């Protein structure tokens, strides 16, 4: 009998993810280009705050020490260099940011001042009814599920974009998935429904299996066929 349990090994999980970064492409003369950067910083000192950049060196031919000097000059201006691009790996030493490949250009919108976010309530996706739904009442909620804590009376009607849950007897009509949601279902504690429908497919009380009557049941669609099965 082996009761010892070896140390469980954590699996190392790697995930790919892509980000948008600014790319600097210095041109010769480097000194002139750095003056341009300084001019930009003078106009808007916070322009590069929180925006790490990638240095694209394909337009210039620099030695390893020149690259190292350029990176230092940029970092002195409080701009962080995330990586290098367009340079042979022999010119890159361990102290430099890593060499990046596979970058794709993308259009960058100048950051427009965001309109102040309006306090909007998140869209309700379910409706809870605390009392029975009486004969003649019609509850229509196309945004999602409807839950009734009580019965749905004969002659009452529930229309839901999602599923319908009735914690009581369902004696009226229940129409789920009216927006074309064929995975919507209908659940109730006592099925005595006049009509149940999911995504347009319906069944009347007459077609309902008599052995299910007054029992907990769920209805769902299997292709184009409605299946009403006992719950639990």
């Amino acid at each position, binding site marked *: 009998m082996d009761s010892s349990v070896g140390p469980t090994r954590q699996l190392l999980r790697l995930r790919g993810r892509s980000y948008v970064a600014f790319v600097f492409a210095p041109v010769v003369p480097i000194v002139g280009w750095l003056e341009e950067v300084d001019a930009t910083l003078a106009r808007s000192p916070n322009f590069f705050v929180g925006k790490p950049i990638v240095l694209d060196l394909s337009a210039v031919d620099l030695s390893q020490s020149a690259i190292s000097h350029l990176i230092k000059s940029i970092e002195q201006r409080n701009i962080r260099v995330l990586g290098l691009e367009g340079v042979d790996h022999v010119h890159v030493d361990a102290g430099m940011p890593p060499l990046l490949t596979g970058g794709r250009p993308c259009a960058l919108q100048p950051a427009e001042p965001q309109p102040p976010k309006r306090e909007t309530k998140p869209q309700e996706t379910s409706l809870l009814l605390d009392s029975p739904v009486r*004969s003649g009442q019609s509850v229509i909620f196309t945004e999602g599920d409807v839950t009734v804590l*009580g019965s749905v009376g*004969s002659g009452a009607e529930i229309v839901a974009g999602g599923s319908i849950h009735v914690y009581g007897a369902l004696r009226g009509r229940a129409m789920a998935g009216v927006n074309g949601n064929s995975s919507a279902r209908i659940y109730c504690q006592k099925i005595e429904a006049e009509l149940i429908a999911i995504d347009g497919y319906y069944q009347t009380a007459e077609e309902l299996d008599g052995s299910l009557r007054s029992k907990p049941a769920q209805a769902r669609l299997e292709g184009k066929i409605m299946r009403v099965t006992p719950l639990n």
Partner: protein
Amino acid sequence: MAKVLVVTSGKGGVGKTTSTAAMGAALAQAGQKVVVIDFDVGLRNLDLVMGAERRVVFDLINVVQGVAKLPQALIRDKRLENLWLLPASQTKDKEALTEEGVGRIIEELRGTCDWVLCDSPAGIERGAMLAMRFADEAIIVTNPEVSSVRDSDRIIGMLDSKTVRAEKGERVEKHVLIARYDPARAARGEMITIDDILEILATPLLGIIPESQDVLRASNIGSPVTINSPASVAARAYADATKRLLGEKVPMMVPHERKGLINLLLGRRAA
């Protein structure tokens, strides 16, 4: 401050008017100052059941239209001095009934008596809506039949949405009164059971009134059964329901078939 109670059902012929008269009289017998109002404009009956049909001068519509003052239209019962009737009009069109006018009458009565009983017409039209509009409490009269129970369910839904109280976010206190209960048919399983009715309506039970010749006889001679034959089973059931309405705890009696003397003798002989 009076309590305004609507007696309603949705379905016709279930016993609203009979129950209004019987319970109005029973409340008056219990010392309460009661006004019963007939809202069935065009088909008034409450005056007949109360035995006041020959004393009608002004009616509800006259008061609504300002032709008569409320005290002129109220008819005092001859047997009970603290029971009044405001009859409906038999000739006028029911469109003459306005919410503003009814509201004014109810407001005036609230200050002067203990109970205002509104006898609702059948249906869910204007008359029925205005009868329940200002109610604080409601008695839903139901017969043990599926059609009656479903109509009651509909009316309960309206009490929860179309009344002034409901619109203010308050509750109308609701009671179910099961009328025309036939113990013999119930024993044979020919009627929907009381448990089923209460399960469907999800509303507390106020009383069970048996189908009774005493009730029919009382209606025909224009005297509420609680005045005409107070010892009868139906009258006692109404009296018990009235006590519950006044907040007393009275055990619920389910009417059962009384064995005739012959049956009893046969039963003994067989034993």
